[in-house]
């Protein structure tokens, strides 16, 4: 595969320490397009080795707006279903630019290891020095070891090492959309995490036309009213949570976006530093970055203050545990009790629809109605299709439920211009149907 791609699939066997590279065939892209279409295919191919497949979308890391996404596809150790967990922030693009479109991790290691993927090279490294460390310490250690603060990581904390059903794979320092217990899967494979860094070049078949259409789509997106808004509280407010903006505002520091995502879906809150400080904080860890609307709302509903909610989210991110599960299952209403409950959680976290996409992404349209009638079944089917399409092309999932201009037609057009492949609506429908069956 020559365009919009590194053309390479990495297959790592933790049991034998064998690392293989295989080519990403153009015929596979013609049939499955990319992202979840191909990660599911690879999961089925390596089914007997309990694989974790990490991948990027066909448009990830391009000038297509919101092309930030990647995904982790694996059988959830909690639900037993094949699930697709979004990769957010800047981690998805770093995977692609590190030299691989897809990474299959199979088998179980005898000893704790981490994977270091950089500029087309992959290493299995001893993780005994970071096993036992929390998520923040682990990312700090990996960045320090490699001497590069821009390395992007996906790591587990103690929840994953202890094989909790609620363990998350975290990205850099922050909680993730993992509602599937994939952190437990990492822990059971003795895989502490992965670190990515790369300076690759992605070729485009017709780069001038691709960029021209990208900028036209961006121009359409910028006519949306949501472009005057930023941050997580606006999203919560738009889905009907009254009073959230006023509640959170006193601790809001800044809002930030995933790669080229026109809406800033992440909000940093400070509680150990003046949140209004614009200079660099003198405090090493002044707060936490929040991307999880349901978790934020769940802690608020327990009666926590905004500050204590921030502290609870930070504690969850360090421990590597799903904050929505903690808020929903702990049955506690004070910060100390909540943090003390991490190891004793029990119960089931409800997943929506077929349970293969993460309800970390709000389950209804944000800021725009997408022409939906208000019927619940129609909304659920729309949401699942929207998630599937986002994870085929590599679009930031939350942005995909707020932006009608990022239509299937536009994504297919860009994919066709970028690859010179005849990627039709019929093919997309077939890939989506396969994901949802």
């Amino acid at each position, binding site marked *: 595969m020559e365009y919009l791609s590194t053309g390479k699939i990495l297959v790592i066997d933790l049991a034998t320490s064998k690392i293989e590279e295989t080519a990403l065939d153009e015929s596979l892209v013609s049939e499955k397009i990319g992202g979840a279409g191909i990660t599911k295919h690879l999961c089925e191919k390596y089914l007997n080795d309990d694989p974790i497949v990490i991948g990027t979308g066909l448009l990830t*890391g391009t*000038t297509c707006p919101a092309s930030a996404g990647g995904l982790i596809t694996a059988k959830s150790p909690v639900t037993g279903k094949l699930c697709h967990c979004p990769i957010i922030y800047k981690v998805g693009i770093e995977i692609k630019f590190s030299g691989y479109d897809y990474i299959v991790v199979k088998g179980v290691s005898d000893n704790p290891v981490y994977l270091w993927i950089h500029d087309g090279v992959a290493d299995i490294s001893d993780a005994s020095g970071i096993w036992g460390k929390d998520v923040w310490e682990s990312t700090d250690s990996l960045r320090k070891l490699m001497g590069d603060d*821009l390395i992007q990581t996906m790591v587990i904390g103690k929840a994953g090492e202890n094989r909790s059903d609620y363990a998350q794979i975290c990205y850099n320092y922050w909680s993730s959309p993992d509602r599937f217990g994939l952190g437990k899967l990492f822990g059971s494979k003795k895989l502490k995490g992965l670190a990515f860094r790369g*300076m690759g070049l992605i*070729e485009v078949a017709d780069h001038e036309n691709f960029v021209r259409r990208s900028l036209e789509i961006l121009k359409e997106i910028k006519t949306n009213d949501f472009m005057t808004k930023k941050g997580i509280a606006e999203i919560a407010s738009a889905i009907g949570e009254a009073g959230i903006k006023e509640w959170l505002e006193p601790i809001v520091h800044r809002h*930030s976006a995933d*790669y080229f995502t026109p809406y800033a879906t992440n909000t940093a809150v400070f509680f150990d530093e003046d949140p209004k400080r614009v200079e660099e904080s003198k*405090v*090493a860890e002044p707060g936490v970055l929040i991307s999880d609307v349901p978790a934020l709302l769940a802690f608020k509903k327990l009666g926590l203050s905004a500050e204590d909610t921030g502290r609870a989210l930070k504690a969850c991110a360090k421990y590597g545990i799903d904050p929505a599960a903690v808020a929903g299952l702990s049955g506690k209403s004070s910060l100390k009790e909540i943090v003390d409950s991490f190891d004793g959680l029990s119960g089931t976290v409800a997943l929506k629809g077929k349970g293969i996409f993460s309800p970390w992404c709000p389950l209804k349209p944000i800021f725009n109605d997408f022409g939906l009638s208000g019927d619940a079944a129609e909304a659920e089917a729309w949401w699942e299709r929207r998630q599937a399409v986002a994870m085929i092309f590599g679009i930031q999932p939350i942005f995909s439920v707020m932006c009608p201009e990022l239509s299937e037609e536009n994504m297919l057009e860009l994919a066709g211009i970028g690859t010179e492949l005849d990627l039709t609506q019929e093919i997309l429908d077939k890939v989506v149907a396969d994901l949802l069956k």
Partner: protein
Amino acid sequence: MGIKIDALKCINCMACEMACSYHRDDGFAFLSACIVVYRAREKQDYFGVLLKEEEFLKVARPEGLEVNRIGEAADPNKKADASVKPMLLREGCDLCEDMDDYGPMCKAICPADAITLE
């Protein structure tokens, strides 16, 4: 005429980096960009934009613009950023003089309108 950056409008999305490097490479990469988002202080949520011009390195920090003449000693009171060293090896901003349809690509692509011409 030059690039003006409002660091407080910046949402740390890196689109400017991609667009700038595209202008140099005709493909998607970050390697050649003369404008980068500095984002190494992630836990402190401190980010802004670095721009290399022919003679100057402009640092658009949230608290204000800092302009350094390339070759002069850096301020010892400022913590160095991992983004700075590679920047000094790259070509300076040419305002995308060959991109007739768009003007500077970083300005054209910035979703937050944090980049303007002055």
